[in-house]
Every structure is written in C-alpha cells, then in structure tokens.
C-alpha cells in the first residue's frame, strides 16, 4: 500500500496524502492530474473498481473537492484521489472513458452541483430533478428552506422541536 | 319457429339462478382460499358488492367500437354456453335450448367469447393486452386438444353429441359415470379443465404481478361488470358441462350445485398448491400426459 502511494508520489505531484485506515488513503492531486492518477491506479496498480465519484462543497475555501474512490480487489484497499476545483467556473475532466458508470455520477454532480463535465454522455439530462430550473440545489448557497417555503405551500402552524428537549419535557417533565 | 315462452321464462330464471350461484361460489372460493392462507377473507357476498360498485361507476372512457363490443362478445359467449346446456336431466323446462349436437356448439362458443374479448382488449391498444391475449390463445390451443379427444371419446361411447343423451347414458349409480366407465378420458378432461379455468398453474394469461391483469387492463366500470357477470356464468357453465360429461349430470338443483361445486373446486385446490407455469412450459405440458391419457381413453371405447 505504502509502495503504491510512493509510486503515486513519484509519478504525480501529490499535494497531500491522508491515511484514514490501513486500506484507505486520501491522495490530493492537482485538477489536471486527477484523471491521469486514477487511470494509473486502474491500469498499473489494479484498482479496477470505481466505487464512486463524490464531491464536497467547501464554500469557505471557494472550492469543490472531488473524490474519485477506487478499489483494488486483490488488496481489498481503497484509494481516493481528491482534487479541488474552483467553485465559480466548476469544470472537470470526464472519467467516463475509464468506467462506463462514471457518466451517471457525473450527470448527478452536474445536476446537484452544476459541475461541468465536457464530453460526458447525457450529462445535461435531468437525473433526479425533472425540470429543475433553479441554481443546483446541493450548492450550499442555495437556501432550501426558503425555496421550499415559497414553492410548496407550507402548512401554517407547523412547528419543529429539538427531539431531545421535546422528548424530555414530554416523558420526564418533572426532572 | 314457434317460441315456447314458458320455456324461455324458465331459461332466464335458470340464468338468474346460475348467475347468483356463480357469484356466491366465487365469494365462497375466495373465502376458502383466505382460510387456507390463515386469513378470514372477504365476506361471501363481496362479489355482489363489487358488481354493483362497478355498474355504479359514474364516468367511463371508451377506446372505440370494438373496445365496446369486446365485453358484449364475451358475455354472449358465456350466456350462449349456458343457453345450449341442459341443466337438469329429465326436466323439459330446465334443459334450456339444448338440442343434440350441443357439445360441439358449446366448445365453439367458448372461442366466440375469447375472440371477442381478444379483439376488444386489443383495441384498447395496451401492450399488456396483446401479450396476455397471445399467451391465452397459445395456451388455449393445446388445452383444447386433450379436452376434445375426451369429448369425442364420450360421444363415441354414447354414440351421440347430445349432452342430454350422454347424461342419460350415465344414469343409474356412480359406476355408470363416464369418469368411471372411461377414466382415462375423464382424467384427461379434468386436467384440461385446469387450463380452461385458467387457475394457478396456468394463469399466466392474466398473470397478476407480471402483466398486471393481461387483457382486461383497460376495462373498468360497466365493461368490467359485464366481464364479472360473464365469469360468474361461464365458470359455472363450464363446471356444469364437466358434470354433464363425466359425472352423471344432475336430476335436481341440489345435485347439480353440489356436483358442479366439487368440480369447480378441483382447479382451485390445484391452483393453491402449484406455482405458475411459464407459457412455454404449460403448452408442452398439455401435449404430454393429458394428451396421452385422452388418446388411451379414445381407444378404450
């Protein structure tokens, strides 16, 4: 495992390596090196299975952090290639040529975060949200409560409680 | 031709009785099925309510004339079978419009209903209708073969195609019943009967949970009501046919009802025990054991 990481470090300029577990590493590389790194892992190191492509929205840093998590069946180990892309013009190279299923993830990311994947098939079709015409809902600047309130007729008189306190005063009022 | 009005009256009365009997029987069957499933099950009179409910639907749609005529054909088929079937042996008034040669007539009237239904359903334009019908017809072709052979065997045995005479030939004790005198033909016919009733091993036509309910997918309201009415009449008529052919007919209503109920129960029990056949399994099945049995049966006479 260590060896593989070293190979990676040798081959690409790895910005950071974070060891989660013995069989799970997070390797951060530059935007343009993510796909080559994944390719390298797939072809050279036997990480033949794409577990998922996921993204974390770091609004404060102004970046999306993409994770390409790949799995190696021999080692039962995962490596996640992470890369930060700019939040404003969010564009990433497509990985669908490596794994057929990649374009489904990319389609979802496009819909939920508005990340462009040029060349990815059917990437512009709606995935979960049919006819969504607002800013992508998973971006953190999207105020979902406000949206819900002005779109779906909220029933007046609905209140939310903090479960812990609510249960306490319901069940053990005299404590 | 001179119409015997009283007889017509009796026939309609008989039709009414059979209709009610059919509905009750259906409810009862459902109830028993429920019991076998450790449930209490629906009330016995539930079919009535469903029927009323369906006839009382306020709005309806139609896909066209043939869609309209489908249920009519179907019900005519069912009522026709009843009309040409003698109910009670020896009673002039309860023998409906059964004249000799009626076995053939009845067998072909089944087609009448089926074809009409098929056409009506297909004008609905629903893919499931087409699939269901193609399956139904395919299965029906092979179901009919052993059944026909059995019928021919019986006809040859009694040298008549007349149900009345076939029944007459079976009077005088259980040992004279055709199921006894010609067991092979009888068994073959009973096996074919399973297919005719489209009960569980062979219900791939309607195939709940697969192609929702096959042909009648688009039917509702009054159409469905007609279909339910037909089912009540048709199933009873078919079991009465079996009774007449193999179980010595009946000399009074009680006997008729008891016998036909028992006959009708046979597919129900089988259906409860056995899972569903695929169409390409059921077709050869009918061409194996039932066919062989019926051939033996025909050469026994």
């Amino acid at each position, binding site marked *: 495992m260590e060896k593989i990481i070293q190979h990676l470090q040798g081959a690409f300029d790895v910005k950071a390596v974070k060891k989660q577990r013995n069989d799970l590493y997070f390797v951060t590389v530059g935007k343009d090196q993510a796909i080559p790194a994944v390719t390298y892992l797939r072809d050279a190191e036997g990480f033949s299975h794409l577990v998922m492509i996921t993204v974390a929205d770091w609004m404060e840093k102004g970046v999306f952090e993409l994770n390409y998590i790949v799995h190696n069946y021999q080692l039962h180990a995962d490596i996640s290639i992470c890369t930060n892309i700019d939040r404003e013009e969010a564009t990433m190279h497509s990985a669908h040529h490596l794994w057929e299923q990649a374009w489904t993830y990319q389609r979802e990311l496009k819909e939920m975060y508005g990340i462009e994947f040029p060349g990815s098939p059917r990437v512009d079709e709606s995935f979960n949200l049919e*006819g969504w015409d607002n800013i992508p809902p998973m971006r953190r600047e*999207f105020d979902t409560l406000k949206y819900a309130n002005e779109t*779906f007729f909220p029933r007046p008189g609905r209140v939310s409680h903090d479960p812990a306190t609510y249960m306490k005063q319901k069940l053990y009022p005299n404590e | 031709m001179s119409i015997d009005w009283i007889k017509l009256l009796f026939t309609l009365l008989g039709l009414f009785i059979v209709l009610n009997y059919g509905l009750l029987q259906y409810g009862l069957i459902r109830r028993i099925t429920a019991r076998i499933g450790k449930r209490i*099950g629906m009330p016995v009179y539930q079919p009535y309510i469903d029927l009323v409910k369906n006839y009382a639907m306020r709005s309806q749609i139609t896909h066209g004339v043939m869609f309209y005529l489908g249920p009519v054909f179907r019900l005519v088929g069912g009522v026709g079978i009843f009309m040409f079937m003698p109910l009670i042996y020896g009673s002039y008034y309860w023998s409906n419009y059964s004249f000799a040669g009626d076995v053939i007539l009845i067998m072909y009237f089944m087609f009448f209903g089926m074809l009409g239904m098929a056409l009506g359903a297909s004008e609905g334009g629903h893919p499931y209708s087409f699939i269901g019908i193609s399956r139904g017809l395919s299965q029906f072709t092979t179901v009919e073969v052993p059944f026909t052979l059995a019928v021919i065997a019986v006809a040859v045995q009694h040298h008549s195609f007349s149900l009345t005479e076939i029944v007459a030939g079976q009077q005088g004790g259980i040992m004279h019943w055709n199921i006894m005198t010609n067991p092979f033909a009888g068994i073959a016919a009973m096996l074919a009967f399973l297919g005719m009733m489209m009960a569980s091993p062979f219900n791939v036509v309607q195939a709940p949970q697969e192609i*929702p309910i096959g042909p009648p997918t688009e039917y509702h309201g009054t159409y469905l009501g007609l279909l339910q009415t037909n089912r009540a009449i048709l199933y009873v008529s078919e079991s009465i046919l079996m009774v007449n052919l193999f179980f010595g007919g009946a000399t009074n209503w009680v006997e008729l009802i008891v016998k036909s109920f028992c006959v009708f129960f046979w597919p129900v029990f089988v259906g409860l025990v056995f899972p569903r056949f695929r169409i390409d399994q059921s077709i050869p099945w009918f061409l194996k054991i039932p066919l062989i049995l019926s051939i033996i049966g025909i050469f026994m006479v």
Partner: protein
Amino acid sequence: MEDKKTFIDPDLTKRTVIGPNGEDITVDPIQDYFCDALPKKHEPKRAKIFENFFNWARAESIWVLGFGTGCGSIELYPLLTPRFDAYRFGVQMRPTPRQANLMIISGYLSVKTLKRAIRSYEQMQNPKFVMALGSCTINGGMYFDSYNTINRLDKYMPVDVYVAGCMPRPEAILAGFEALKKRIKAGKAEGANLYAENFETYKANQKKIIRDWNMPDYNW
C-alpha cells in the same frame, strides 16, 4: 441564479413523417395521441335511495391502486397478511388505475413522483378517493424544508382521509379505511367532482412545481 429554462421533450415535439403516398404528415403528439377533453362533474343520482345504495357499495368494495410512494408503501403490504387482513373490509388491490377507486399516497411525495401520481389519479374513474399517509403528506413532516418533496398533498389533489403518523401503523391505516367508508356512505367523498370543479386551481398548483409539464392537461 440563471433565468428560467424551457424544457423540450423529444417524444412530444412536432414531427413530420412521410405517408404511404409520399405526402408529408405532421404529427403533434399532444394533439394527436392524447384526448384533450377536461374532466366533467358527475352529479350524484337524483334519487337519494339509489345514491345511498351505491355509496354503500362503493364503501364496501374499495379497490386500492397498487401505487406506493415513499417509505409508507412498506406499511401497506402487512394489510394483506393474515394479521391485519384488509380483505375483511372489502379492500382489494388492483393493478390498474382504471379499475381502482382508492389511491393511497403512502408517505413523502417528491415532485418527480407527484407527476406520476397525478397521472394515475386522473386515469382513475369517478368516483375516486385519495388517502394520504404520514405527516409528510400532511405538512411535509421531516422533509418540510426539502427542495423537492411537497408539503401539502391537498393542494394538488383532493384528499379524503389523512392518516397521521410517521409512519402510521397498519392499524391506523385500517382506521383510515373505516373513516373513509363513513365519509363515502355520508356522500361526502366527492373528491373527483371537487377536482373537476376546481380543476384550474389544482392544475395551477401542479404546474407551479412540475416545471416540465410534458403531458396533456388531463390524462384520461
């Protein structure tokens, strides 16, 4: 936030085909494939006695459309098991909306599902009833602030009975059936007519959230 997009469905755009004699035939799917009539209000029978009788029949034979939304659909199957056995109350499942009378919205309803629900609801025949399970359908429940689950079902289709809970247990649903029956027998369950009367309102609400409305206004 960019401006409103327009959504085009390739299957519903006009197209031109060549007829057998070489003539051009323009096909407008919505026009040619779908009936564009609007629902009518169907008056109850004049004679009260008939109407009561029919209502009784409707109440006693409730055919449920097998349409499960959200987590609640899992609560429906126990109804048919020996333990609860909804058959006793004349409740049966039907696979096709044409033959069903009762639609059970079992839990939260995302916009995408709502479109299907509406389509099925409109394909049911008058009289038809709607039963909504769970707080999600009442006020959005735990999804009250979600960006694509509705908050109140009754804005989109007339609901006869709400069964509260998250999720309501089968007993509750059975109680719901009883309530529904009472309502029907009392002749108050005129959801279909209500829908026909305030058709514009309902349609407006539906179209407000279903932005790519790729079907006729009323699905017969």
